[in-house]
């Protein structure tokens, strides 16, 4: 277990606009290793949902198999969760979303779950632009089976086993971009200040939002030569900017130096302020975003932050033109044609 939660909190402390305390967003105690990056991501999800005043029971958290996929137990205890089968979170989430478009779908997966066994489903959920948040807790290794390299382990990266990875790695952000994701971001689990606003933006984004969170495996892949270890990532991060998420109707104003900040407005009026640093590019330009990832990679660095945002595409429901009412709320009367149509139908079959 990675942390002991205080068992007493002041009842009046920290209630959000819905009257929920942070406790309403927490889950069971984590059983992951102490110091696991995944627990930081869980904490960031909890804080994001609290800050956004979400109703916990209107969230569905769905995962595959692996250390990362265990985490939905550790946040949002009042939300339904579904720990499905290895690599298949996207299809389960797709079906769930088709049944009820009104819930928030929080998909949690790992690098093995997404970049290997689940690659096909990952690719297709992106191209359908399913309205969901897809978080990959990316540690470059298979933790639950004791540290084998995953497909996101960089070539030359050395895990606890001591053998450098000989294969090229898969960059999930580049894949998501290529496949048409509307929001693409990469974060580091150790950088809460960056992670929380991006999770919030992803939640508010309509369509497919992808966050690749580099989340070190303290047990099997945290060596000085591992490109997914705390040390290496801290030393090699190149952020797209410092980020603040401004929810709709908020009166908070931030003082950004003129000409150096950028604002991304989401469909519900929320805004994401990005104080840029480093090379500048148009965040809504897929080609430029792709180029930026490659350029930073050439410098042996990892591009983090919001990499791409474009909310203009229809989500899956929009593409297949479903009714506004969630399909699981339609009554038998609305669904069953009844005997009235059968006279005509049978007649046509004679």
């Amino acid at each position, binding site marked *: 277990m990675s942390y002991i939660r205080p068992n007493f909190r002041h009842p009046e402390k920290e209630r959000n606009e819905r009257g929920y305390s942070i406790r309403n967003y927490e889950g069971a105690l984590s059983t992951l290793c102490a110091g696991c990056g995944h627990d930081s991501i869980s904490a960031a999800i909890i804080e994001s949902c609290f800050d956004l005043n979400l109703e916990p029971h209107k969230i569905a958290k769905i995962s595959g198999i692996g250390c990362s996929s265990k985490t939905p137990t550790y946040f949002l205890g009042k939300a339904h969760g579904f720990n499905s089968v290895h690599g298949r979170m996207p*299809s389960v989430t797709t079906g769930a979303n088709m049944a009820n478009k009104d819930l928030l779908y929080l998909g949690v997966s790992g690098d093995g779950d997404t970049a290997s066994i689940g690659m*096909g*489903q990952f690719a*297709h959920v992106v191209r359908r632009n399913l309205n969901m948040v897809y978080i990959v807790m990316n540690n470059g290794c298979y933790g639950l089976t004791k540290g084998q390299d995953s497909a996101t382990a960089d070539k030359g990266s050395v895990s606890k086993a001591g053998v450098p990875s000989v294969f090229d790695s898969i960059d999930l952000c580049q894949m998501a971009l290529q496949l048409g994701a509307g929001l693409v971001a990469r974060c580091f689990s150790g950088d809460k200040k960056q992670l929380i606003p991006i999770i919030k933006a992803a939640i508010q984004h309509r369509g497919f939002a992808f966050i690749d969170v580099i989340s070190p495996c303290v047990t099997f892949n945290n060596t000085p030569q591992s490109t997914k270890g705390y040390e290496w990532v801290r030393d090699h991060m190149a952020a797209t900017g410092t980020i603040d998420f401004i929810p709709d109707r908020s009166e908070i104003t931030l003082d950004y130096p003129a000409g150096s900040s950028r604002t991304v407005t989401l469909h519900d009026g929320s805004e994401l302020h990005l104080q840029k640093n480093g090379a500048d590019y148009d965040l809504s330009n897929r080609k430029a975003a792709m180029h930026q990832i490659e350029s930073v990679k050439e410098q042996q660095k990892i591009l983090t932050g919001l990499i791409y945002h474009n909310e203009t595409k229809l989500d899956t429901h929009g593409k297949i033109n479903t009714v506004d009412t969630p399909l699981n709320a339609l009554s038998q009367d609305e669904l069953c044609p009844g005997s009235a149509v059968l006279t005509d139908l049978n007649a046509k079959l*004679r």
Partner: protein
Amino acid sequence: MNAVKEINKISATNDFVIRFANVNGSGSASANNLFSQAVFRLGVPVSSKNIFPSNIQGLPTWFEVRINEQGYLGRRGGYDFVVADNGQTMAKDYQELLPGGYFFYDSSKRLPNSFSRQDVVELGVPLTEITNTHYSDPRHRQIFKNIIYVGALAYLLDMDFTVFEASINTLFAKKPKLIAPNIKALKLGFDYAEKNHTDVCQLNIHRRDLNGEQILMEGNAAAGLGAVFAGATVAGWYPITPSTSVVEAFEKYCKAYRVDQDTGQNKFAILQAEDELAAIGMVIGASWNGARAFTATSGPGVSLMSEFLGLAYFAEIPVMLMDIQRTGPSTGMPTRTQQSDLISAAYASHGDTKNVLLFPSNPKECFDMTVAGFDLAERLQTPVILMSDLDLGMNVHQCDPIEWDDSHVYDRGKVLNEQQLTDLNARWGRYLDVDSDGISYRTIPGTHPEKGAFFTRGSSHDEYAAYTEDGEVYARGMQRLLVKWDTAKTLVPTAEVLSDGADIGVIYFGTSAYSSQEALDQLRDTQAIDTMRIKAFPFGSEVDAFMADHAVVFLIEQNRDAQMKTLLVNELAIDPNKIISVLNIDGMPITAEFLVTEIQNQLDGLAGNRADKQQTSGGLL
């Protein structure tokens, strides 16, 4: 050329088999359907089998039509009349024709000398010449050539021509320009045959009134329609022969009945998945979230879906799956029929799993059992698999009309709504067996702000859905699933038993029903036989009783390994030696001829054994 006079011609009215040999992709299917539909509209029972290749264009395809006024709709075996429209198979088609039969061919080119049978009637019609004379567009020449032979058949088989005219009028009601050229083609064929083959053919199709309110429908269309009536809203699917037309039918009927008149928006979501794994994953996600969802596939798809089926079984999520079986193993013969997925479907997935199976025998049952399947899946919170097959799914069958009882209310099973959760005093457990029927109460995401949330998982869980590695708790859950299995036995459709106290019993299921009934009518002339048609797995007590009540039971299946026998022996305390399997595995619908021969041989053997006072032994095949 043979001398017609010497031939002992087959002579029959409303009782013969005609086989069309065509090239696939040539438009012959429409013409052949026009013919079989005309038989039906003349009030004569008809069944047709499309024997097609796994190919889009250019390979041989056959269309067998059985006309039988006694109402036998199974494959009979043997051909009385062949329409030879495919050069590639012509020699074989010629050889396979029954003695005294009729060989209809395109006489624009004379038959090779090797076609020298003295016992068949050759009926030449210069189809190519006629089309080339009357049509200039190459596509028209192709299409109308087929219609011309249908016109010739109308004369040769003495069919009422007005039926064809009426069919063409209905068929092209929305494209009236096509009516006249089609009728013209029919007449060209009719007139040629009338002039050149006057009164040669002694096979007739004469008007009767035997079809009543019956309809012609494919099983897959009926299953798709059933899913609409059952209130399915989500379909995830991956194309695979012979199941594809289930979802196509679902979409067609949804577009007819499920589009909001005001907004044009759809009250359904159909997603073509990336593979069968994703298709069943979508179904599980949607069912978990409270929608009725289904997918359709065939054997290879069931193999791919197995892991997910195990999840649905263990996490107790309703799943409606239609398995339109084809010939396995592996890719097998993708366009041939079989009943060979019984075991892979019944016990799909690793670990101890069992799934509910339904066995429809005709399109109406595809409809009814699809509707029942959705109710069962939600009542039992488990996968239900409709075990159709290629013969039933893709061939047009004559059956009773589709019916719907407007007082039928969907059985959504044990689902707690917001009020029920609020009112709940005791601690709710997702996997608690409150009612002692093995079925627990479930909740749908988003229902209640405080109560009812739980973590669905394929890992072992306790009664409150919490992860556990406590062996006792795990075992308790697995045993409860067996209690639920016992409940399922009381809910699934019961077997159809016809019992007159005979010692001999015959069991059949699915599409074997057609030929079995015909074969039994013949066998019963000399032997008292009771029958049972199995409609579902798990087996109800009536199946147990039937096995106990009969000394010898013939079990008819369309697979090699007697898979239904395996299920019976595995699930019931019965003596496997009393079962004699009758198995057909050639990928073609089983015939009455085959069944009569096989069963009669066995019966003769049994009688011989009895006479010798020897013990009979089972599993003779």
